Structures are given as C-alpha cells and as structure tokens.
C-alpha cells in the first residue's frame, strides 16, 4: 500500500504521527513527512489508523 499526502490540505495537526509514529513523522513545524514510499505490509494497519486520524483528510491510501 502507498500513502499520499495533499500538501495543500495538511495543516500540521500531527495526529497521524500521534496515531502511527512508524509511518508518519512530522517536521520541525509539525507537518507530515512520510517515512515510507511503499508502506511495509506489517505497517499497513498503522498507515490506515494514521490516515483516519487526520482532521483535514489530507492523507490517502492507494492499494
């Protein structure tokens, strides 16, 4: 699975990182940085959890 972030929508809530720190890192300002181009299978559940934590709906998972 692959995660995409809409940079124009991410506002630095950092809730993806709070929910799934192994998939989503945040920069010095609190904006998301993706740790994996292709999410490893064992982190897929985490990737979904982090994406659904975003109040802006800025994260999408592509199967």
């Amino acid at each position, binding site marked *: 699975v692959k995660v995409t972030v809409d940079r124009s*929508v991410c*506002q630095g809530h950092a809730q993806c*990182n709070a929910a799934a720190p192994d998939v989503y890192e945040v920069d*010095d300002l*609190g904006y998301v940085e993706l740790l994996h181009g292709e999410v490893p299978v064992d982190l897929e559940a985490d990737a979904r959890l982090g994406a659904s*934590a975003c*109040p*802006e709906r800025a994260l999408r998972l592509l199967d």
Partner: protein
Amino acid sequence: MTLAPETTNTEHRLVGTGHVGEGADRYDRLRATGSVFKVAEPDREYWVVLDHDLVRQCLQDATTFSSSVISPLNPEPPFAMIPIQLDPPEHTQWKMLLARYFSPRQMEALRPGLEARCRELIADIKARGECDLLHDFALKFPTAAFLELMGLPLDQLPTFLEWEKQITTPDDKGGFDEERQVGAMFAVVGYFAEEISRRRNAGTHTDDLLSDMLTWEIDGVPAPDDALINCCVLLFLAGLDTVTSTLAFSWHHLATHAADRAHVAATVARGEATDGIVEELLRYYAVPEVGRKVTRDVELDGHLLRAGDLVVFPLVTANRDGSFLADADRVVLDRAQAAPHLTFGAGPHRCVGSHLARIELNIALVEWHRELPDYVVPEGVEVSSYWGNIHGMYDLPLQVVDGADR
C-alpha cells in the same frame, strides 16, 4: 438551481448562561433538524453551520470564508489580531514563524516546567481537600504557562487573570458588555507595547518567545511593533480561556461521572498514556464558536449565503455529529482510536497552539489524578456555564474524596 425560501430562526442567541450542558445541547437540538440555519437576533444576523463535513469544508476554504470577522459579536473588530484575522497569503508567513515555537517537538521541551507548575497548584489543593477548579487551577495553569513561554514575570499572573476574565466572561447578568471587553483588550495592547519597547531599549536578548518575536521578518523586513503587539494579544487570548474552559468542562464531567473518573485514575495509576482520554474530552467539550465573513455568494446545502454575511461554526456540535463518528453523542474515554475532531479548527487557521493545549491537558490529567484520584461536586451546588465566542464556567467547586472516605 432553485433554493427553498429561507426560514429565519429568531429564537437563537449567541450569548447566554444556563446549566453546564446547555451551551452545546442547544446546537445539537438544532442539528437534529438541519445543517444550516439563518439566525436573526435583535442586534445581529448570521448563519449557523452544524454539519461536521460542511464545517470542515468551509473552514478549509479561507478564500470564501474570510477571517476578517471571527465573531458576529465583533462585526467591526477594533484591530486585526495577527495571524488569526489575516487571510492567506499574508497569514501564512506569520503562521510559519509561530508554528516553530508550538510544534510537538518544541512542546516536549516545555514539559518539565509545566509539570512543576502543575504539581505546585495540585499540592496546594490537596492540602486543603477542596478547591474551586476555575480559580485555583484551570485559570492559573495555562496562564502561568503562557507567561513562562513568553518570558514574562510570574508576578503578572493576577493582572493577566483579571484581563482574561473581562475579555472572555459575560457580565454578572450573563450579558455581553462590548465596552468592558474592548477596554481590557486595549489594556493588554498597552502592556505588550510597553514591554516590547522596554526590551528594544534594553537591547538584551532573553531566551523566550517574546524576545525572539522582536527579530522576526515579514516579506524580508522586520515585523513592525504594531503587528507584533497584535500577535501577542492573540497568543494571550487564544491560549488561555480555551484551555481554562476545556479543563473546567473536563473536570466537571469527571466529577459527575464516577466510572469515567475511575477509568482516568486507573489509567494514570498504571502509568499509561492519557492522550486518548484528552482527545475525547477535547472532542465532546469543544469550547470555541468560530466565526467567518463570506466573501462571495455561495450555496451551502441548499442555502444561499451572500457576500458580506457572517457565519458561526459551533465546533462542539460538529464534533457530536453522528454521521462522522459512532456514539458521537456521548463521552467514550476508551475509544479504539481517537476521533479526528474539529476542536482545533481546520484549514489554514488551524489552532497553532493545539500541541501546547494537548500537552497541558495531558499533564494536568496525569498530575491531578496521581494525587487526587477521587473528587465530586459538593452536594447542593448548582454549577452554571456561559456561552458566546467561548463556552466556559464561572466557578466549579470540588470536594476531594480521600481514600478513607471511599
């Protein structure tokens, strides 16, 4: 496109007082009958948007929903608070400067100081066995944290608390006194004007946010003092009553719900994280009502909003919308995953202090329940709350239940 004729609600009032749940419940009752309402009060007209998805979409569209007016209570603001009342792109530079000081990483650095301050307040309450949560804890903790972050002396605390009260709380009759509010705001402006000029003249740089702000540049030139003062006023207003009121509603909930109180105490006793509990309390008791001014005619769910109209987004009811979350109409402290609530807003004006609020609330919850796991509202006490731009409480008496009494 044909739109149904608009029915105007003449009953609703932005400002009022009543029992603790009413500020939010009245919006939940409205939301049960529709998503968008036009309200006409004797002194003002505005729209209310209640649906979760609509609220998020509107807040994300800062071009159509401008922050030049953030409350129908102040349709012509005396000055623009920076950056909350700026629109992009001017807003963006300020937001980026501020975000560095309020990032999750930066907030962890504040933790030891916040914990120490919190413990002092709680030790005092424990010694007495009772407190007024508002005046002994919920007002003092975030205000002290603000003074420390800005590099202002702690002995200013009583002065700041008085200004905060005059700006955010309705008068004794539950009415809204714009003169009193604006007067206190100008007192805060005066304080920061003097402090900034004192620091400029002294020429020394201390390691705090206010001193750093004096070095900020916007569009490649030093930010003017007027703008910095307005930004200080915003930081003061945005970070204090919001956390204060969230603490008040959260502690009122826990004091009146024994099972939830026991769940928090047990979580803290096991040394487990309280983030999920904090998120659920933030969701259910979102205290701000966010306003915007419409810049162009726009249709929202079958209603035509005209350029120049004012809109209110009561975040609390958007967070309780069952179409976005199961069991949204009740507090569930052990949800499998935290709900992506809108308590900190959405779009470019997402609350820059959200991570500070979160760490303050987590520290308060842990430090309090480690020392004071059991407490109640004394029998016979009627707690009341007010609502307006912010929902809050005047006072919240609590009686500590010690182990021997349980």
